[in-house]
């Protein structure tokens, strides 16, 4: 595989991927106005693993959707590299997602009518310089099940396919929303291992949303959210390996 960076390089480069300033997201509901995010400022760097921790309703998934260009903020800006995401129209946001963002969701969201290989190819076909789908699947330890349909896989396997699908286009950022939320802890550890491996081998900035504090151990930095604001930030002196995590 080419273009793979090691963890040491990540620390050395520290190029800024995202700058988030005064980010606010307000929803209008029948019960009134809900502030999901309230004036968040933060910077994210290439190659990092960031864990967003917080209870439900703290705004972590909202932040993830704004970073991924699935939604727009009410107030504030997000810069991705040198461009301002918040000024893009729908078409440009779609192009941004297509080119730079890989998503992993809690409920896998594989296409049930496509095989494992086809699910990954779906994204590879759109990319300029994709990782070969079989390599991506090998990276997550699923090279044996290429022609199976999602319904024939376990939850953990499905999630690993979702990770392979996300990284096959060599995204600049991998956004994972509760990737272990729907699997048991043993399977969850294997899913995290796959994410970690992609981060190490492809140097992808990985933002991982979870309410599971144990997972924070594998991050470079941990941002804690509460009531739509960053309540705390800490940098781990040493990233724990995913396989060492247990909950």
């Amino acid at each position: 595989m080419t273009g793979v960076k090691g963890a040491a390089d990540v620390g050395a480069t520290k190029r800024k991927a995202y700058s988030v300033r005064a980010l606010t997201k307000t929803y209008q509901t029948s019960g009134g106005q809900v502030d999901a995010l309230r004036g968040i400022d933060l910077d994210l760097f290439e190659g990092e693993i960031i864990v967003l921790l917080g209870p439900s309703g703290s705004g972590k998934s909202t932040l993830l959707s704004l970073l991924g260009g699935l939604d727009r903020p009410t107030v504030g800006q997000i810069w991705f590299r040198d461009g301002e995401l918040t000024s893009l129209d729908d078409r440009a946001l779609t192009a941004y997602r297509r080119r730079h963002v890989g998503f992993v969701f809690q409920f896998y969201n594989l296409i049930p009518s496509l095989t494992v290989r086809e699910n990954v190819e779906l994204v590879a076909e759109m990319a300029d310089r994709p990782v070969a789908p079989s390599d991506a699947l090998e990276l997550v330890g699923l090279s044996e099940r290429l022609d199976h349909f999602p319904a024939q896989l376990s939850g953990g396997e499905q999630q690993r396919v979702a990770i392979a699908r996300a990284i096959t286009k060599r995204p600049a950022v991998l956004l994972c929303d509760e990737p272990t939320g729907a699997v048991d802890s043993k399977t969850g550890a294997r899913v995290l291992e796959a994410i970690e491996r992609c981060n190490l081998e492809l140097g992808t900035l990985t933002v991982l949303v979870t309410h599971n504090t144990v997972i924070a151990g594998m991050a470079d930095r941990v941002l804690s959210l509460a009531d739509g604001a960053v309540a705390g930030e800490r940098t781990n002196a040493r990233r724990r390996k995913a396989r060492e995590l247990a909950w």
Partner: protein
Amino acid sequence: MGILDRKLVRDLRRIRGQAAMIVVVIACAVATAVMSFGVLRSLAETRAEYYERYHFADVFATLRRAPEPLTEAIERIPGVARVQTRVAADAALEIDGIDEPVVGRVLSLPDRGEPAVNAVALRQGRMIAPGNAHEIVVSENFARAHGLVPGARLGAILGGHKRELAVVGIALSPEYIYALGPGMIAPDDRRFGVLWIGRQALEAALDLKGEFNEVGIQLDGSKPEAEVIERLEAILKPYGGAGIYTRERQSSHAFISSMLDQLSGVGRVVPLIFLMVAAFLAHTVMGRLIDTQRQQIGLLKALGISDRAIGWHYLKLGLVLIVLGTGLGLAAGAGLGFGLTDIYTQFFHFPFLRYKQDPAISAAASLVAAAAVAVGTSGGVRRAVSLPAAVAMVPAVPSTYRTGSWEKLGILGRLNAPTRMILRHLARWPLRAALGVGGLSLAVALQISMLFSFDALDHMINGFYSRAQRQDLTVFFADSPSSAAVDEATSWPGVVKAEGYRTIPVRVSLGARARLVNLTGLQSTATLVRLLDAELAPVRLPSRGIALSSKLAALLHAKTGDVVTVEAIGSDTRIDVSVAQITEQYIGMDAYMDLDALNELVGGGSRISGVHLLIDKSRREALYRTLKNVPTIVGISERAIVLASFHDTMARTLTIIVSFFVAFAGLTAVSIVYSGARIILSEREREMATLMALGFTTREAGHVLGGEIAILVVLALPLGCVLGRALGWVIAERLDTDLYRVPLIISGGTSGVAMLVVLLAAVISTWIVGRHLRRLDVLATLNARQ
């Protein structure tokens, strides 16, 4: 309202689009059934009552002349209840301000009292004063067309003499509910009317003192009709009469019966198509609802709500649709029934005709609709009832797809992922796909089966009549004059060419099969009126032998070369003649032979019934002025007017009726596509959200939705055309009567319109559903529990 009922209301609100579509299709079914059977019943009952009240005859006979005392012999025939003789003749009418030919059918009324058979219904004015020779009663629609009211006067050439007649009354007759004049193929109230006059006056005018030339008979039912006819034939034969026909062959009665048959066909077939679609929609929508509410059902059961209550809850949802659909359908059906009755009253003249809503029909239509929808929803309801609480609490097992053997051929390798998704989804639920295709193709077929009437009409007028009948005018003479009349006709102003013809009633038989038809003799050199073969190519009139119209040949089981027996009615002449030609004829079923051969058959020298004329149109008015003064002429038919009137009458009726069905078919297509698209969206919205999150545009993700619909539509369109032809064939067969045949001609335009309507319906429905996709909350959809 209980909690479950509140849930029901909210569920209905959530699926309101699909629910509305099911309601509309049920309404279409109920409305067409109520309309068709309602009008059918109203017309049939009105006709029966009309016949009863005005003693419409069961058997009719025409003859040359017979003395009045013969009536007693007829009355003595066992099985005869009432007899009425009369004098009848055609007359050329002169109406102020109209230079076109107008034909009057002049019928005598008894000088005293009501006719025992075929009485008239006086609508305005009074009946003729006894013994008054100049008073007449005229048929209502004819009077209306010319603004005739009691007190008006009109001229008529009767028995070769011009007479001034005074209108004293306006009336209707059960014999002329559908009034066709000589040479006409559709009613034309401006050019044909019925006149009633005193018996003595008409006898005197026609030189038939103490005689009659028509008789109407009512039977008492004690003897078979055939037996009475046999005896009647024997009595009338010496008087030049055996032109006996039953009510079934009476033209007005036969036309109405044929129309009632069509209505009954429509009433049986069309609602069934709508009900099949409604059941299919109810099945898919209810099935999907249960799938999405598995966990709710489980929860409700876990909370202690019984299976029965759950079943009843979902059944109620179906019932609401049934109640709304039948309610709407009954209201629409009544409205359409009134509308259709109104259309029919333009052609059928009844003294009383009201569209009567029949509770039995409404109840039957509602029950059948309810049963169809209940069958459609029963699968879903059963599933809800049988769902164990524990199973219902866990998410449904994701759909398992398989690589089909058809994929191994490698075709799919070249297709992109969304297309593969579409094909596998279709293959995963083949029955649903097949039913969707079936429903849409029925929508195409239904339209074709109705729209083709326009093609048939066009074919009959521009294909058939323009080739078979090229004369401008046909002139009918009172008594068959000698062939010299043709030379005289040639000398009339503006006449370019004149060809004589003679038509006589004959009985044509082959073996045990016989038919009473008109035999027309044409000049061997005739070019104005030509015989056409099945491909509508002109064929030469055989100098020997007889040409039979295809319908007549089919009824007699005769083919070219067979020898048929031709018996001239009213004479003892009877010859065996070989079938030289089978010809196409859409209206009526006649036989043709050489004029000289026909005259030889009948005897009495070379005679004609009328002439076909080709005229110089710039001298049309001069010609009409001359014709008005030729006393032997009883009628003139102008081909262009006959065809235009036929076209207008048919096109007007067809446009209204066909528009209904095209609109209904369009609605059906919208409902099928809309429901299908909503279900696809509901089943696949997560997949489409995934695609959008992965960087596909909304349009690309929407391809999964639109593509599946497109495949169903693309499969349905050609299938619909094939089904449409089959349905058209069934309808054409139903319309194939002794009176007329409808050629099964389906133009590219007809198929095109039918397909376009369904295509447009599909595009509009998909666009509407597509709006939901454009508003999709991608993140919420992806994070929702499966």
